[in-house]
């Protein structure tokens, strides 16, 4: 049973990655969007090194939040166009495998995007961190997971509604506010070296666990909602 679940997850993940590798439409759109946000913020604020340490955490996460929304909408819209969701509903495969495959593939896209954007951020904003880089890596991992797990779940929900793409930010942003608060808080604490980022990181970790559990518990109902 676990074996077959793993195989299903792998099949879903491989399908998403292959689709993306061949078309590259989601990733390119996301990359360009994030780049634009970074450049526009830089024009809008013209920060000095001291200021940019304080601002960068917020700008960074806002840029990713918005580009994640672009990616997430696309990832389910593709399935809807090709009737994959209907096919999945009539198949005996568990819905959780579909969700997990989707979450992992979205996580990979956003993580790749981050790997490309972090050097650009450092370049444009003259950033140098006062705290540990490893902590930043952990925050990046947790923050991305928090955005992607909720985002994938709500994107699956929003494509079922009348106004589709428009619905996702309206659902995702209010629920993500606490997560964004703690990732920005933790990132700023590491960058400026003021105070410890650990309480915020712990909160973010608990948030990830709780909302991952809730997403998996409710996804079956969302997929089969009639």
């Amino acid at each position: 049973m676990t074996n077959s679940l793993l195989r299903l997850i792998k099949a879903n993940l491989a399908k998403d990655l292959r689709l993306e590798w061949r078309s590259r439409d989601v990733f390119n759109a996301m990359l360009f969007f994030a780049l634009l946000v970074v450049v526009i913020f830089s024009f809008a604020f013209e920060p000095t090194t001291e200021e940019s340490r304080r601002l960068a955490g917020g700008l960074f996460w806002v840029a990713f939040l918005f580009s994640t929304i672009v990616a997430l909408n696309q990832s389910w819209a593709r399935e809807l166009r090709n009737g994959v969701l209907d096919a999945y509903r009539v198949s005996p495969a568990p819905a959780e495998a579909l969700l997990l495959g989707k979450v992992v593939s979205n996580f990979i896209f956003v993580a790749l995007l981050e790997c490309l954007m972090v050097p650009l951020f450092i370049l444009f904003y003259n950033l140098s961190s006062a705290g540990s880089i490893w902590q930043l890596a952990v925050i990046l991992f947790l923050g991305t997971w928090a955005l992607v797990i909720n985002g994938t779940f709500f994107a699956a929900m929003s494509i079922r509604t009348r106004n589709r793409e428009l619905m996702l930010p309206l659902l995702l942003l209010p629920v993500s506010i606490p997560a964004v608060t703690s990732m920005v808080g933790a990132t700023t604490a590491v960058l400026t070296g003021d105070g410890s980022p650990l309480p915020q990181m712990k909160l973010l970790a608990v948030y990830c666990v709780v909302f991952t559990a809730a997403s998996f518990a409710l996804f079956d109902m969302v997929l089969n909602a009639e």
Partner: protein
Amino acid sequence: MKSKLYPLLTVLTFALLSYGTYLGLGNGPVQATQSPDRVDASPKPVVLAVSSSAIFKVGDTAIIDSVDSGVREKEMVIAIPDTTHVTVAKLDHVHNENPFAIADKLPFAQQLKSPAPTEFTMGNVQRIFYYHVPAATCAYTLFLVNFVASIIFLWKRSATADLWAVTSAEVGLVFATVVLVTGPIWGRIAWNTWWAWEPRLTTFLVLWLLYVSYLVLRRSAEGGAGAILSAAVAIFAFLDVPFSYMANRLRGHHPPPVTLEDPGMKFVLMVNMLAFLLFAGLILWLRSDLEKVSRKISAAHIQKAARGAMACLALPAVFLFQERQNLNPTTFMLAGYIATWVIYLAYLLFLMAKMAKLKKEAAELGM
């Protein structure tokens, strides 16, 4: 809509609301003062220093209340040596917080007739409290109803549970709007700013946003699928609240919470709390009856409280940018009371309009 309990409950609710408002607005006697002393327990009479002994008479019962440690006792006043000292018969507990409150206990019959006293530092604007806190309690209660009803709906798939979920979310949002409008009016005087990114405020704002998104989803996805999707959102919204509170606590801004020490104020708050809980129940009942009728009529649609709320919020925003000193607490108090009733009445009018429309549709269909 035909229940005989309606008129009775309506009269009772509005009578209690008027009584609560009268108690909140009227100027009652001050019953509490503060002592800067640190005193030990003693079986013999104790002299306590107070800000003013004018509120006490010999033979009265004094309530000695250390708020932080939660120690509270009632002792007989046996002598009043001068204007800044009071002697009580004995003390059962240690009061070593600085300062603690001493209040004069009124007999219940007299308490019923005494409106709330004016607060020393904030003045009349503190009276917004009697509308603000009950509205918050009602909003939290209604959102809890929404959460429980959503879980029951997902479990049993009962249409009644879904009906209670959607109506409690909408009515809860109206009360939450009152909280968010009266809060800043009070804060402009008490904290000298309209808004502080304080955990409780921020959590409440996030809560408000979550339920707006719940109702928007409700409107966007009607029918069975909409009910299931929004029940899932309701569960996410409820899970989100503790995180929201924690995340903002870690950010560090934390103006001190306001505690009520005066027993007169507490009594007025309790009256208003009861009145508004009844009021919330009445509106919820009315709203769910409307929802039932509207579901019977196939062309029914769910309207949002959020739209009216947005308009109410946008208009006064014009005044928010004015930098002014010497603000009058009474004006702000009245603004708070008026804003509250504008929101409640606007919502009630909206429900009336909806009811009239449904009746017309029902008549056309010959129901």
